């Protein structure tokens, strides 16, 4: 377990090697109209196949950072580079997921899943992907739900379909903005284990925004703690629990110490 203070330096925590996939340098963001500085000089390197989390008080700029990384918003200054190419807009090698599953009720589950293909390459290409979509549904345990409409899916099932939709384009990185926080805790734990399994299976590079300390610790190789607005990384904590993780590890004393450490950091920031 190694803890590094990184202030303004794009230093990857020690002990993590692998090709750098995402590189952010001095990314900051000010919303001019409302005169809000949401992010202050964030530097970040994500390496291939790692799982990183970011945790911080509400409104500190986590979603803003993710949107900039995904090419949905330009930064006010700084640069974002993915796989050697600067991010200047949405890209198909980025997969993204939000708190709401946002499945479209007029499309069946499988049609929802191939939607990104349909948007980018047309209906024919989407149809060609149906087989692959079915395999993904298998992967997340939704076999047999291909042709039902989303109104018949529970919250957790809808989020699983959203995972499939994210994966269908075979993205190099996954950006996850509190993907399961609308689910009840039992389903959420379950979905987190599913997520880990999928990421390991595909060697995906993942970046997760969360409010839950145990969730961040159980899933991540590195947990970044962010300060209140304007958001800055105040600490990066490497989690050296073995993979694959299980829910039982939550009773592990190492787990407890990590959680405790992060909570202390956050308490300082969040509730003065």
């Amino acid at each position: 377990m190694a803890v590094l203070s990184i202030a303004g330096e794009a230093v990857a925590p020690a002990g993590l090697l692998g090709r750098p996939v995402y590189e952010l340098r001095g990314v900051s963001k000010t919303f001019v109209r409302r005169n809000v500085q949401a992010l202050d000089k964030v530097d970040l390197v994500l390496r291939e196949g790692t799982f990183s989390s970011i945790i911080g008080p509400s409104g500190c700029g986590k979603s803003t950072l993710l949107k900039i990384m995904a090419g949905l918003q330009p930064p006010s200054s700084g640069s974002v580079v993915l796989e050697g190419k600067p991010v200047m807009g949405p890209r198909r090698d980025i997969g993204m997921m939000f708190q709401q599953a946002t499945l479209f009720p007029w499309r069946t589950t499988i049609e929802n899943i191939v939607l990104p293909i349909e948007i980018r390459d047309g209906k024919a290409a989407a149809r060609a992907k149906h087989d692959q979509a079915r395999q993904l549904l298998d992967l997340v345990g939704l076999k047999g739900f291909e042709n039902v409409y989303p109104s018949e899916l529970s919250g957790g099932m809808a989020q699983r379909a959203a995972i499939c939709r994210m994966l269908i384009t075979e993205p190099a990185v996954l950006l996850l903005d509190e993907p399961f926080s609308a689910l009840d805790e039992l389903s959420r734990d379950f979905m987190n284990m599913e997520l880990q399994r999928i990421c390991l299976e595909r060697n995906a590079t993942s970046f997760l925004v969360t409010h839950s300390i145990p969730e961040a610790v159980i899933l991540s190789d590195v947990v970044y703690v962010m300060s209140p607005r304007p958001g800055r990384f105040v600490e990066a904590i490497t989690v050296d629990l073995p993979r694959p993780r299980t829910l039982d590890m939550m009773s592990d004393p190492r787990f407890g110490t990590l959680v405790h450490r992060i909570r202390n950091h956050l308490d300082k920031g969040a509730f003065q």
Partner: protein
Amino acid sequence: MTQAQVVASAIPEQTIWKEHVSWIDRVPRWVSMLALLIAFLIVWQIVYFVELVSPIILPSPLETIEDLFVVGKNLLTGDYMLAALWITTQEVALGFLIAVVLGFGLGVLVGETAFGERAVMPYLVAINTMPKVAFAPLFVSWLGFGIASKVALAAFIAFFPVIVGTAAGLHAADQNARMLFKTMGASRWQTLVQLKLPIGMPHFFSGLKNAAVLVVVGAVVGEFLGGGKGFGELIRVAAAQLNTPRVFSLIIYLSLLGLATFWIVAWAQRRFVFWHKESVTEETLAQ
């Protein structure tokens, strides 16, 4: 014996709390509707009987019902009233079509572009507050005395709710869904067609329902003014002849036409916007 045991065994009867459904909620719908209709007819007959109103202003309900049969027979035997109804139906159908196309187009302009929303919409609102019948001569001089001019007036009277419905619908997609489309790299056109339009369908349809009612009124008013050969003209003639039972029975048939148009739209909504459950009130309107 502990206190807990005492309590647990001592409450056999009055703790049993049952829901009760008011008898008025258990009356079948058709019964209450019929009751209301009969009550209304009785009041009407009394008003007539004590001669509160002259018969050339308000006919008696009996006369009106009698005339309903006369008109009904005429319609069924394919006589001149059927021809008139057919003309008005055509006007309504075409007027509705044009109102939908025009309203949809302008609604997209207003809902999708800042220019439409900020510069065009205020004019549309202003036009909507004008008494549109005053423009009837314009339509006649451009389109003649056939059904075209009535269709134009009907569409003109009915198109506004379609604009409002369409524009509101285009604003209905939430931030999440928009962002999702952005991550997929969807073009503006794709976002419009695949996201905003389907999500906006419920709003669009409530605009259509308003339009469905207005278009009937528009067609009839067009016939009142510009001499057509439809139901409006029949009403006008009957009114000029002080044949009030006929006026009333024609109006009742017209309102059936209006209800039919409304129902068709409501049916289309249930059929094509199958994923959207309506509010209770809207459901009533649609039944």
